[in-house]
């Protein structure tokens, strides 16, 4: 059974903190993605990666960075968390256009 695992279900961080969201997939997929989900806006792509050490900006990359040192792991980094980054974050990997999502991390920045 395919699996995408995000390290935390819920996180509360303070404004200005550096935040790491970790994601691991066990399907040997080359493509991995980070989205955020906000009411009325659907899923918006932050960054994606199509290979180890490769990354591409999505639609809303500002305030975020990513790291892909190993094929199975894709990390999202909030360099200095702000309250407008409070959201549900979803990691996914994909094969032939079909994405497999993790369970999500609900991040609250206070």
């Amino acid at each position, binding site marked *: 059974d395919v699996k995408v695992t995000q390290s935390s279900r819920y996180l509360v961080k303070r404004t200005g903190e550096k935040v790491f969201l970790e994601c691991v997939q066990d399907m040997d997929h080359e493509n991995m993605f980070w989205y955020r989900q906000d009411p009325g806006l*659907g899923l*918006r*792509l932050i960054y994606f990666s199509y290979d180890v050490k490769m990354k*591409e900006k999505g639609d809303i990359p500002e305030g975020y960075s990513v790291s892909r040192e190993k094929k199975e792991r894709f990390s999202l980094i909030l360099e200095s968390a702000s309250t407008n980054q409070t959201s549900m974050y979803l990691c996914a990997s994909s094969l032939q256009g*079909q994405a*497999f999502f993790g369970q*999500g991390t609900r991040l609250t920045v206070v």
Partner: protein
Amino acid sequence: DQQVKQNSPSLSVQEGRISILNCDYTNSMFDYFLWYKKYPAEGPTFLISISSIKDKNEDGRFTVFLNKSAKHLSLHIVPSQPGDSAVYFCAASDPGTGGFKTIFGAGTRLFVKA
């Protein structure tokens, strides 16, 4: 500007009846469309897809229809069940990125009443 639009934020349907969820897109180059289902506190899960060379794809109670000339697709659920209550996202694979990027609509929350 949203390239994939789901104009109905919510839909309420009686158990046993048909649920029809609609989706419009603006980019005529999109060639692969997907529907995902999301329960609260879980990630979206793939439901059904359709290639632009087809106009219909069926999987059990779920059927997706594609009208390329109208840039419109719809998901039909027959018969609807209470367990179908969830948020449904329409999505399109962006060929400009080799299919890497998937563009999602805002979602439609379906309520199926028992």
